[in-house]
């Protein structure tokens, strides 16, 4: 008897689990929970590695895993870094805001803290000049056989720990000064996002055109 009831119920079992089919309906909550839950799942770790391989491949092909090219950006003698960054910003901006408008992705706007952004940014720049690689291009430089980057990697790890040691103090001082939350450039001008992007992209294009014309 038991075995018969079990088998007759089995074909019905998919009906008893409607939750997976309902999930796509409540997008916002669903995707948020999914993403947070999966952040360290093996699938996301694999994806992280794959995206990293692509990123590193592109950085090397672009020539920005080289000390001389990165220092050239700081001396304003080599504009490869600016060309890559501004093109990435323009393409990514169009793509990500379009996907966001269609409900495919969530935004991750970084919070604005004027004092920390400025002071931290200047300190970062000084370190960037001393090392000659940034955190991403440093990993790429090491992959390309620029062995001096290994000292930079150890320095990055050590520096992160020094920051962590001071994080309690910094959180209650510099990081509090001029905190403005997740504001975006159009907010500063009181402009609508779509209208801002439509005028900002040609501006980026114009800057790139100027760079190409005067510093090929």
């Amino acid at each position, binding site marked *: 008897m038991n075995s018969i009831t079990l088998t007759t119920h089995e074909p019905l079992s998919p009906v008893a689990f409607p939750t997976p089919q309902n999930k796509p309906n409540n997008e916002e909550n669903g995707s948020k929970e999914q993403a947070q839950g999966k952040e360290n799942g093996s699938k996301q770790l694999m*994806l992280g*590695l794959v995206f990293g391989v692509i990123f590193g491949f592109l950085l090397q092909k672009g020539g920005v895993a080289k000390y001389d090219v990165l220092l050239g950006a700081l001396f304003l003698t080599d504009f490869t870094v600016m060309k890559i960054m501004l093109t990435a910003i*323009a*393409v990514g901006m169009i793509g990500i805001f379009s996907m966001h408008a269609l409900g495919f992705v969530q935004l991750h706007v970084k919070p604005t803290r004027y004092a920390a952004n400025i002071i931290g940014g200047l300190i970062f720049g000084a370190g960037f*000049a001393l090392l000659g690689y940034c955190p991403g291009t440093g990993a790429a430089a090491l992959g390309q056989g620029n062995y001096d980057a290994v000292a930079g990697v150890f320095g990055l*790890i050590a520096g992160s720990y020094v920051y*962590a040691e001071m994080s309690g103090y910094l959180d209650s001082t510099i990081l509090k000064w001029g905190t403005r939350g997740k504001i975006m450039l159009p907010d500063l001008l009181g402009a609508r996002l779509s209208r801002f992007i439509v005028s900002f992209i040609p501006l980026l294009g114009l800057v*790139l055109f100027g760079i190409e014309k005067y510093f090929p």
Partner: protein
Amino acid sequence: MEYDSGAWSPYLVGALIGMLSMATFYFSNQPLGVSTSYARIAGLIGKLVSKGHTESLKFFQETKPQIDWGVMLMMGIFLGAFLAAYTGHEITAQWIPPLWEERFGPNPALRLGVAFIGGMVMAFGARLAGGCTSGHGISGALQLSVGSWIALMCFFAGGAVTANLMFGI
């Protein structure tokens, strides 16, 4: 067409990085960013040395020391650059960059010492600013974050002044 700096056009590379950003947002709900991964590794090493102290630090309570998506991304960057350089016959296998040697000589200890200090200073700045050249400079800037544009300009301003001091004096 020949490019002085890289094997591929910088515009092609930039466009592909922009598309890669779209992919990481869509498939992983993550922006491209690298500097936090060094901090997570620092925390992992710190936990090996002194677990209690590391866990008591405010920063590591917010940024968990663990192997996450970003740490895998960073390892991928290393691998991907190796693959690109190996297949493109561009492995440099050098300890001292030519531009450095021209100015400061062939002493590897000097180069590695300055690189280590530079890495330390840069990581501190990245944590204070809230990101690096990819987190602020690409991901933050493309989302029009005000702080990211400020940080990006300060990266280059601080870098230009320091580089000119180093090579000018």
